[in-house]
């Protein structure tokens, strides 16, 4: 019986090793798609990494940009259409899942590549301040693309520790991030394991410690590099829930002693009629909003803040 049990253990081990081989194969060329189909993993593509990876590549490009606009998806919706007609401004709004840690890394990568930079703008809605390292989009947007680019070392120790607690050190390496991007099957297994085991609960609240720390880090980084840092509020729908969210965030800023430094974020917040927004009440309705509308919105932000000087709002 002992001999049989040893053989059984060896068989199980061999099967697991072969399965690991299949996982390796699933990242290679045509096998990636085949295994994705056979394992119903086609939904786990590398789109998030490609999206954020493009922003990382863009901010690292050594061009003539002297100012950087970062932000969430609302920022990208409004400012993104003008990204190609601006040379002095690098516009790289992404989304809230990037977290403030991701925004910090993008800013750092920009400042590293642009020693003469003068301004860094962070244009976000209150939602970004509540985004932590969750099991949903956090890994794909805030961790994997930066791990693949070898940028995670730029974070402070506490944020790195939180990242490790949330996603596990082996999965924050460039090798694993690139493997998971190449193999939807591997990404599926990892992300679903995260959902099941939840190694660390994501932070919650209107201003999570992760956001607060990285906001302060961003301010300090810009100061150190001689660039001005501007925190601006992205356009908000004039609705009860958005007012409630802003009020909660304002109170959190006051409690954290940050309000005086960033009061303009609250006093100059651009409010728009709810009817201009889509179903989610967060993004403008693309059916009615166009380039002219976004140029008008940016113009109003420029007038209210006296910032974003020289931003080109036309392709003429």
């Amino acid at each position: 019986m002992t001999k049989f049990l040893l053989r059984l253990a060896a068989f199980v081990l061999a099967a697991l090793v072969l399965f690991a081989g299949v996982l390796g194969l699933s990242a290679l060329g045509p096998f990636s798609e085949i295994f994705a189909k056979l394992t119903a993993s086609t939904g786990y593509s590398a789109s998030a990494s490609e999206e954020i990876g493009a922003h990382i590549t863009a901010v690292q490009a050594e061009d003539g940009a002297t100012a950087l606009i970062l932000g969430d998806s609302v920022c990208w919706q409004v400012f993104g259409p003008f990204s190609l007609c601006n040379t002095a401004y690098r516009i790289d709004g992404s989304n809230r899942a990037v977290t403030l840690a991701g925004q910090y890394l993008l800013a750092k990568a920009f400042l590293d590549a642009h020693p003469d930079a003068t301004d860094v703008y962070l244009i976000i809605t209150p939602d970004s301040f509540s985004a932590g390292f969750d099991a949903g989009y956090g890994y794909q947007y805030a961790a994997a693309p930066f791990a693949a680019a070898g940028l995670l070392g730029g974070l402070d120790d506490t944020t790195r520790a939180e990242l490790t607690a949330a996603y596990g050190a082996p999965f924050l390496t460039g090798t694993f991030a690139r493997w998971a991007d190449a193999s939807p099957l591997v990404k599926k297994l990892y992300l679903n394991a995260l959902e099941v085991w939840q190694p660390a609960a994501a932070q919650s609240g209107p201003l999570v410690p992760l956001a607060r720390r990285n906001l302060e880090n961003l301010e300090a980084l810009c100061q150190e590099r001689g660039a001005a840092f501007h925190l601006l509020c992205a356009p908000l729908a004039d609705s009860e829930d958005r007012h409630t969210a802003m009020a909660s965030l304002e109170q959190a800023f006051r409690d954290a002693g940050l309000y005086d430094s960033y009061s303009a974020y609250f006093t100059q917040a651009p409010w728009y009629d709810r009817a201009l927004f889509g179903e989610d009440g967060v993004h403008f309705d693309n059916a009615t909003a166009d380039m002219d509308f976004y140029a008008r919105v940016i113009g109003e932000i420029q007038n209210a803040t006296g910032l974003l000087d020289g931003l080109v709002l036309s392709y003429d």
Partner: protein
Amino acid sequence: MTYYSLVFPLFFAAAVLVFWLVPPKARGAVLLAAGIFYMASWGAASLGILAAVTLLSWAFGRGLAAAKTTAARRVFLVLGLLASAGYLFARKAVPLFASGAVLVTATGLAFYALQAAAYIADLYKGRCPVQKSLLRYAVYMSFFPRILSGPIGRPGEFFPQLEELCAGQRRCTPDRLRRGLTTMLGGWAEKLVISNILSDWVTPIFARWTECSAPVVVMGAAGFALSLYFDFAGYSHLALGAARVLGIDLPANFRRPFFAQSMGEFWQRWHISLSGWLRDYIYIPLGGSRRGTLRRMLNLLVTFVVSGLWHGSAWHYLFWGLLHALLQIGGLLTKPLRRPLAGRGGAVMVWVRRAFVFVCFALTLVFFGADSLGQGAGMLARMVSGAPGLSPLDLGVTGTELAFAALGLVVAFCLDLAAEKAEGQGSCLYDRFAALPGAVRTAALLVLAVTVLVFACRLIGGDAASFYYAQF
């Protein structure tokens, strides 16, 4: 907890380990504890109903055994049958007439209720001795490898094996474990590699049949028959394998049904434990074939309508049962005409007969898989309409997946063919497999194990396809 949940392998390994390590006398208690734990994972209501059916049927069984007069025995028989299958009957029959009625769902009820009824009936007929030990009776009722979807147990086959296990007369041998685990691996492959992909493909056909082209609806019916077979046969093999590892040999629930050459033979090969139960406890007590052709036809009608009702509390299940009764009656009436043709035509006629059985089964199964009688009739009409519509690859399953399912079907067909041949020669497929060189066996099992692991990944991150028969 199904055979696919991540915790099942851990639960099963722990149960097996404890079961074989404790003294033989304690093995019954271990099986009962495992059964209770397993059923508790399906909710308190399921566990409570199992406990109630177990306690009441055991108590009435004791009463029946102790009764001195025929009248008293009959009273206990009725009480015992009511306690065993009364709630099951209510759950199946009441919704037919009171559409708003909601009765508590009890996982596995359709299977263990029939086991309890079989015990009471066998006791009454003197075919099995009374089980004085509540613990052993509870093990019979709650034996976890089969509680979800059978095979439906019989007291005469289970209790002697349990006695041997508890007396230390059955031992854990490498051959027992090897056979059990290999059977389980085969069951997983049937379900994960073939049935789940076919099910992912067939489900949209049944849901969007009005948009599908006529050939796709035909393929949907054939695909559903195959998907259902590999789903249930896969579960049955898992149950058989798990039970074998625990020292209990359960009877086979399927014997290559699509190799049957008549509908009568089909029911001797498909869901054998239910067919056998219906034969022994419904058809034969009604008189079987002993009271003339007309009465025999009536008995067949009643038996198959009961079978339809057992499958579901909806008219389309009853109609499915009725169709099979009519096929049986048709077979009975045409028997004299077919008799001179028996054995003629060689292999070609054998396969023609097998194809005929498959077509009959697949067509009746349209009513089984449909949501209503109207849908079933509509699908059959669409099959012959020649209507254009969605093609096979418009239904969310890719050609790559279907190609793999087809490959699985070819492998399964070859294995079934080999098993059929081996059985005809008084052997079995496993014995043939065991006779292969060790390296070949290990390589084959490794390929199977890795294939199962890969296809198990389909279940992650989605609604894990459950066993079709678990709903009954």
